[in-house]
């Protein structure tokens, strides 16, 4: 589904992605962790074309992102993206946030989109909040609307860029629960997060990045108990301490 081959990216002289090769298959849940500035957000932002890269090959659901003729819009219809800062549309209600793209991008009728949207908002536990505007919702609620908004496009892949980092601690779990159930339903997911509990529970693979490179790739069990790299163990000792 997602295939990186020797991908490089530079911001000026800064080498933000260094020789990334990585394959994610259908239904796989991959957690990406690493210090801030290690390139993990950049990595998943490349997957839906929010960031360009300069060298290498990246194919997502059959779309070759390196080619200049890539139809980014069609790709993005198949790839959901959840942002750290939610980025809900402030002038739209929760339900409108969820239905606007299916209506205008997928061409669904308003009624069809609303049936789908209501079901998804129910699913993320916000059945009673459909008519609220984002500013009337808590952070955790906003992020759940954002997840429903992505799901309403019925994507094949879901990308999460630190979805719980902007949340107060007591709201993290309500968002993680939604993500866990999504993972268990077989969604192909790449999740940038520091929530190691989530990684343990549902990840098929955990990736550790440092200075733009993938340093370690392992199943969660091995990753947390027998990481090969010194840098991974050092990182883990810091994030698992609390």
């Amino acid at each position, binding site marked *: 589904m997602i295939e990186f081959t020797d991908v490089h990216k530079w911001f000026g002289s800064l080498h933000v992605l260094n020789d990334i090769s990585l394959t994610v298959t259908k239904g796989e849940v991959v957690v990406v962790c690493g210090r801030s500035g290690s390139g993990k957000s950049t990595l998943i932002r490349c997957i*839906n074309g*929010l960031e360009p890269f300069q060298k290498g090959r990246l194919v997502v659901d059959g779309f070759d992102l390196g080619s200049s003729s890539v139809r980014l*819009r*069609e790709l*993005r*219809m198949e*790839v*959901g*993206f959840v*942002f750290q*800062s939610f*980025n*809900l*549309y*402030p*002038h739209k209600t929760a339900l409108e946030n969820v239905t*606007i*793209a299916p209506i*205008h*991008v997928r061409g669904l009728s308003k009624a069809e989109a609303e049936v789908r949207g209501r079901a998804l908002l129910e699913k993320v536990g916000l059945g009673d909040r459909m008519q609220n505007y984002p500013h009337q919702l808590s952070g955790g609620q906003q992020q759940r609307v954002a997840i429903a*908004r*992505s799901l309403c*496009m019925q994507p094949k892949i879901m990308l999460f860029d630190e979805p719980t980092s902007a949340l107060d601690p007591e709201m993290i779990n309500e968002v993680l629960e939604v993500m866990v159930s999504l993972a268990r339903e077989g969604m192909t997911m790449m999740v940038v997060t520091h929530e190691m509990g989530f990684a343990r529970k549902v990840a098929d693979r955990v990736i550790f990045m440092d200075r733009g490179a993938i340093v370690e790739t392992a199943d969660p069990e091995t990753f947390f108990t027998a990481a090969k790299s010194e840098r991974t163990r050092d990182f883990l000792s810091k994030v698992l301490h609390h």
Partner: protein
Amino acid sequence: MFWLQLNRVVGYWPVLLKGLGMTVALSVLALLIGSVIGFALGILRAGPNRTLSRAVGLYVDFFRGTPFLLQVFIVFFILPQVGIELSAFTAGVVALSNVAGCFIGEIVAAGIQSVPAGQKEAAAASGFTRAQQMRLIVLPQAVRVVTPSLVGQFVLLIKDSSVVSAIGLLDLTRSGWMIVQNVPNGLLVFGIVGLGYFVICYPLIWLSRRMERRGQAPVL
């Protein structure tokens, strides 16, 4: 004496009313056309195409940086020399719409730039085209931010319309000139003319201030 003069000025009410009608017609037309121009310029100005943005910037700065009276003269007296002959009314509407478009364009561009980058990213990530991102996500938010300034700009537009009396249009200001030739009390005549402008402008000033105090425009 004063009461007699006031009585005579009031006797000219058809002229005043005609002038007021012309001022309102000019302002409303320029407001509509200027808004269309302004939104187009603003979108280009805030757009990703650097060259286009700079070209628009230069155009806008030229008209913001030259006296409006001069622009009216150019449209009315100089364009005919290159074969574009306009009636005084059309010339007035053209000059006024253009200058309004320039000011509105700068306001709209600022509004577009005030919408957080994350909004455009979220819209792009959902698969919206550039035009859809602008129409559905960015502009509605930008308009809310700039509505108080836009309404304030409309007030300036109405007042600027008085300049076109210089090319012979019988607007509110010129009707004052005509009356003062028969009733030699400038203070009185232009006081009444000023009152006419104030009556149109004050509701807008009030609206603009109220929206600014609320921090945003009402949901339209």
